C-alpha cells in the first residue's frame, strides 16, 4: 500500500474535474485521479452548445435563462442555484474563450449563438439564440481546452487510477441545544492503479467528486461504457444521501437501436421530427415551440407516437428526424459530426433521407447533494467538511426534474470552477483528518473475493439483464407495476452478483475485475433510482408515472433524499430510507408547464 498526501484530490477528469483542477492547481497541492486518460472523458461527446445570455445575436439576459432553467426543470430546481448558474454562465463562456476555446463566430467576430430546446425570450415568448457553440463538437472543444489548460498549469494527473472507496470519519458533535449528531469528515480516498493492480491511499484535506453519470444502468444510452455511477455509489456507501435519483433524462434523438446521440442542435438548426405518416407531430404536443420543447416532453411525445402505432420503420418502433429541407452546406457547416454518425452507423444520408431516432438515456438530474459552493451535504443542510462534488455526479440542484439542453456543459464549468476554488480555500486552513485504521481493507477484501470467486456468474450477463429491465420498466413511461418489476429483477441480480466470477486473474490492466466492480455501482444506483421512482407518486419532468399522470405540488414539490440504511424496511424497499428536502424558491411561483 502506498500513501500519498495532497491538499486537494479531484476524482474524475471530465469537464467538471478539470475545470476544478485548473482553479485548485493554482492555489493548492492538487492531484487528479482519473480512471480514463482525461481526454477520453464523456464531456467530449457533448455536441450542441453551452448557454449563456451574452446577447451577441439578439436580446437576452440571465434572468430569462434562470426562468427557463426553473420551468424546464418543472419547478423542482433550487432557484438560488439556477440564478447562480445563469449569472455566472456569461463569465464561464468568456473564461473558456480566453483559455482558447474556438467558438464559432458572428460576422463581427463575436461568439455566435444558436437556439436550443427550452431556452426562450422573455419567459417563453419564443425560442432565443443563447447557445454558444463550436460546430457540433462543443463538448469536445471544452474537454480539449480544459485539458490544454491543465497542461499549461502543470496539473498533476494520476491516469487510469480507479477510486474505489471514499474515506470518511464520523465525529460526534453537540449542538447548542445539547443534542448530538454524527458529523462526517473527509480523510481521503482509496485508489486502484489499473496498470499494475496496486492499491494507493490518497490522504487529502479536500476531495472533489467529478465522476460523471450513470447511463450504463440502461441498455439504450448515449453514455460511454465507463459511465457506471462510480462517484454516486461511493458517496452513498459512505453514508451520504442521494438526491432526486428518480429523474433521468432520455434524450429524444438517439440513433434508433444504438442510442448514439444526435444533438438537439439539429432541431436548433431547423430539423424536425415526423411520424410514419409524415406528420410533424410536435405541433400537437407543444404548439408554440414545437420540436424545441424540452427533452422530457419531446421524448415522451415520441414514445407516445410509437405506442399509438405511428412509429416508422419495419417494426414501427422509432420516429424520424427530418433534415432534408435544410441546405446541405448549412448541415455541413453546423452539424458535421452528427450527420456522419447517421451515415456511419445507420447508412442513412441525412441530406436526402430522414434519420431513424428514439429516446436514449442521457443524463442523471439527481446525484450527490451539494449547496451552491459545491460542498457535499450529509443531510438536508449539514455540510461534510472537505467534501465537494460538481457536474453530473452532483445535484445542486440546477436541473430539477429535467435538464435543459446545454445546461450540463454550463453546470460543469460554473460548479467545477466553484468546487476547485472552494476545495483549495478549505484546504488552506484545514488540518488533515487522520486516515482510519486499515483504510484499504474494504477495497482489498472486495477485490480478493472477486478474484477468488468460483460462483460462475458473468458480469456481462447480469449487466445486460439489469439494462434490459431498466429499459423495459424505468424509461419514459413508468407505473407502480413496472417499477416493482424492476425492483424484483434488481433484487435477484444483487443476490447473483455475489457469485460473479472473473476470468482474468492477473494484476496488469485487469479490466475484467474493474467491470465487475462497476457492476456493483450500477446495481446499487439502479436500486436507489427505482426506489425513488416508487416513492414519487406524481409525474414531473423526466419522471412520468402512468398511474399518477399529473404533477402534484401539494405532496411532491420536494426533492427526494435516499439514504443507505440497513435498519430501514418500508414499502418493500429494505435497506433504503426515503426522505425529502424542501425546494428553494426565490422569484418564480410554480405554473403549469406549457410550451
Amino acid at each position, binding site marked *: 500500500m502506498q500513501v500519498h498526501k495532497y491538499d486537494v484530490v479531484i476524482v474524475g477528469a471530465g469537464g467538471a474535474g478539470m475545470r476544478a483542477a485548473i482553479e485548485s492547481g493554482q492555489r493548492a497541492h492538487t492531484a487528479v485521479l482519473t480512471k480514463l486518460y482525461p481526454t477520453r472523458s464523456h464531456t467530449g461527446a457533448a455536441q450542441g452548445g453551452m448557454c449563456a445570455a451574452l446577447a451577441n445575436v439578439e436580446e437576452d439576459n440571465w434572468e430569462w435563462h434562470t426562468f427557463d432553467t426553473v420551468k424546464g426543470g418543472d419547478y423542482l430546481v433550487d432557484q438560488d442555484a439556477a440564478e447562480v448558474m445563469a449569472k455566472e454562465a456569461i463569465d464561464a463562456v468568456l473564461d473558456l474563450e480566453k483559455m482558447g476555446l474556438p467558438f464559432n463566430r458572428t460576422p463581427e467576430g463575436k461568439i455566435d449563438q444558436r437556439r436550443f430546446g427550452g431556452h426562450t425570450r422573455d419567459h417563453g415568448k419564443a425560442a432565443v439564440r443563447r447557445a454558444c457553440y463550436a460546430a457540433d463538437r462543443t463538448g469536445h472543444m471544452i474537454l480539449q481546452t480544459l485539458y490544454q489548460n491543465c497542461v499549461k498549469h502543470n496539473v498533476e494527473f494520476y491516469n487510469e487510477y480507479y477510486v474505489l472507496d471514499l474515506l470518511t470519519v464520523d465525529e460526534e458533535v453537540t449542538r447548542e441545544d445539547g443534542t448530538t449528531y454524527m458529523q462526517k469528515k473527509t480523510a481521503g480516498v482509496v485508489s486502484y492503479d489499473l496498470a499494475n493492480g496496486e492499491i494507493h491511499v490518497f490522504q487529502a484535506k479536500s476531495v472533489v467528486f467529478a465522476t460523471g453519470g450513470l447511463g450504463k444502468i440502461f441498455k439504450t444510452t448515449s453514455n460511454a461504457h465507463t459511465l457506471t455511477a462510480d462517484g454516486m455509489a461511493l458517496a452513498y456507501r459512505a453514508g451520504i444521501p442521494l438526491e432526486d435519483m428518480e429523474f433521468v433524462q432520455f434524450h429524444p434523438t438517439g440513433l434508433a437501436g444504438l442510442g448514439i446521440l444526435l444533438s438537439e442542435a439539429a432541431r436548433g438548426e431547423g430539423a424536425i421530427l415526423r411520424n410514419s405518416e409524415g406528420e410533424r407531430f410536435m405541433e400537437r404536443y407543444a404548439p408554440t415551440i414545437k420540436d424545441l420543447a424540452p427533452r422530457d416532453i419531446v421524448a415522451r411525445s415520441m414514445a407516445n407516437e410509437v405506442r399509438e402505432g405511428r412509429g416508422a420503420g419495419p417494426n414501427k418502433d422509432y420516429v424520424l428526424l427530418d433534415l432534408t429541407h435544410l*441546405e446541405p452546406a448549412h448541415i455541413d457547416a453546423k452539424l458535421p459530426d452528427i450527420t456522419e454518425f447517421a451515415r456511419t452507423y445507420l447508412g442513412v444520408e441525412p441530406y436526402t433521407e430522414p434519420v431513424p431516432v428514439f429516446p436514449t438515456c442521457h443524463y442523471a438530474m439527481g446525484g450527490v447533494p451539494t449547496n451552491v459552493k459545491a460542498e457535499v451535504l450529509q443531510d438536508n443542510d449539514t455540510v461534510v467538511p472537505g467534501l465537494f462534488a460538481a457536474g453530473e455526479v452532483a445535484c445542486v440542484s440546477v436541473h430539477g426534474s429535467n435538464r435543459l439542453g446545454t445546461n450540463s456543459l454550463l453546470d460543469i464549468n460554473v460548479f467545477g470552477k466553484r468546487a476547485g476554488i472552494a476545495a483549495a480555500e478549505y484546504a488552506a486552513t484545514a488540518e488533515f483528518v487522520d486516515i482510519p485504521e486499515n483504510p484499504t481493507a474494504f477495497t482489498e477484501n472486495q477485490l480478493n473475493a472477486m478474484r477468488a470467486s468460483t460462483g460462475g456468474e458473468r458480469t456481462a450477463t447480469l449487466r445486460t439483464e439489469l439494462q434490459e429491465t431498466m429499459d423495459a420498466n424505468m424509461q419514459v413511461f413508468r407505473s407502480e407495476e413496472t417499477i416493482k418489476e424492476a425492483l424484483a429483477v434488481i433484487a435477484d441480480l444483487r443476490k447473483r452478483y455475489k457469485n460473479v466470477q472473473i476470468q482474468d486473474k492477473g494484476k496488469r490492466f485487469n479490466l*475484467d475485475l474493474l467491470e465487475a466492480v462497476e457492476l456493483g455501482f450500477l446495481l446499487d444506483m439502479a436500486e436507489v433510482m427505482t426506489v425513488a421512482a416508487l416513492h414519487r407518486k406524481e409525474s414531473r419532468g423526466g419522471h412520468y408515472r402512468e398511474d399518477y399522470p399529473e404533477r402534484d405540488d401539494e405532496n411532491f414539490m420536494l426533492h427526494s433524499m435516499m439514504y443507505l440504511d440497513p435498519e430501514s424496511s418500508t414499502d418493500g424497499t429494505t435497506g433504503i430510507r426515503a426522505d425529502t428536502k424542501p425546494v428553494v424558491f426565490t422569484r418564480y411561483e410554480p405554473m403549469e408547464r406549457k410550451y
Partner: protein
Amino acid sequence: MSTPTKEAAEPASKIDMKESGGGGEIPSFDVTLQVRRYDPEFSDDARWDEWTITMYGTDRVLDALHKVKWEIDGSLTFRRSCAHGVCGSDAMRINGRNRLACKVLLKDLDTSKPIMVEPIKGLPVEKDLIVDMEPFFQSYREIMPFMVNNSPAPTGERIQSPEERERFDDTTKCILCAACTSSCPVFWTDGQYFGPAAIVNAHRFIFDSRDDAGDMRLEVLNDKEGVWRCRTIFNCTDACPRGIEVTKAIQEVKRAVLTRSM
C-alpha cells in the same frame, strides 16, 4: 462554417412519406476474429488467439471484441469508452490499418477472411491491445498545446473573424487517439519523432489568430525530430478517424517554419 445564421423556410407540417429506414430483420453473419495477445505477467511471448462469433449488420469491431470479452474470454484487454468515435480510446490496427474499433462496421470488412486486430505500432505494448500512451502525450505536451496570449484580456471575448476561425478548424477536431502517429513509418523507426498528432495540435495554435506563441512552437518543430522528419507518406491522413487532413497540416507547418521564423 460560421456563415451568418439565416432563417430556414418553415418545413411542411405534413409530407408524404416514402417507405423508409432499413429492411426488417438485421442480418447476422459469422466472423472470425484474430487478436494479437500479450501479457508479460504470464509470458514474454505474444500469440494470436482466434474466435468465430455470430455478429449483426450494425455491429462494429468493438462489438466483436466485447462479445469475446463478455462471453468467452474475460482476459481479452483493450481500452474503450464512448464507442462512437469521439473519445479516442480504441485506436488499433485492424487488418493492418489504424482505425478506431468503434467506427469500423464489420459488414464493411471482408468477413470471408479472419479480421486481424493488433495494437497500434511504435508505442510499447502493455497488454493485448493496450499500449503505453505516455510517450505520445509527452510529445503533445512539448509543442505547448495551449493558447498563449500576451495582450491584456478584454472584458468580453477576444474578437476573431469567421475566416480567422475557419483557418484552423480542421486541426481542432483531433481526439488524440494516436492513430496517425502510430501509422507513421518514421515514428516506428524513430520514437523520438514528434509525430503527426503533436504537429496537428501545434498547427491548431500556430494558425489561431488569438495566439502569440506560434514562433516558439515553430522553433520546437524545426528541431531534428520535428516536421522535417515527415516524408509525406500520407498514412496519417488515411488513419485519422476524424478526417483531418493531417499531411496537409504538417506541410502548412513546414511552410510556416520557412516563412515565419527563419
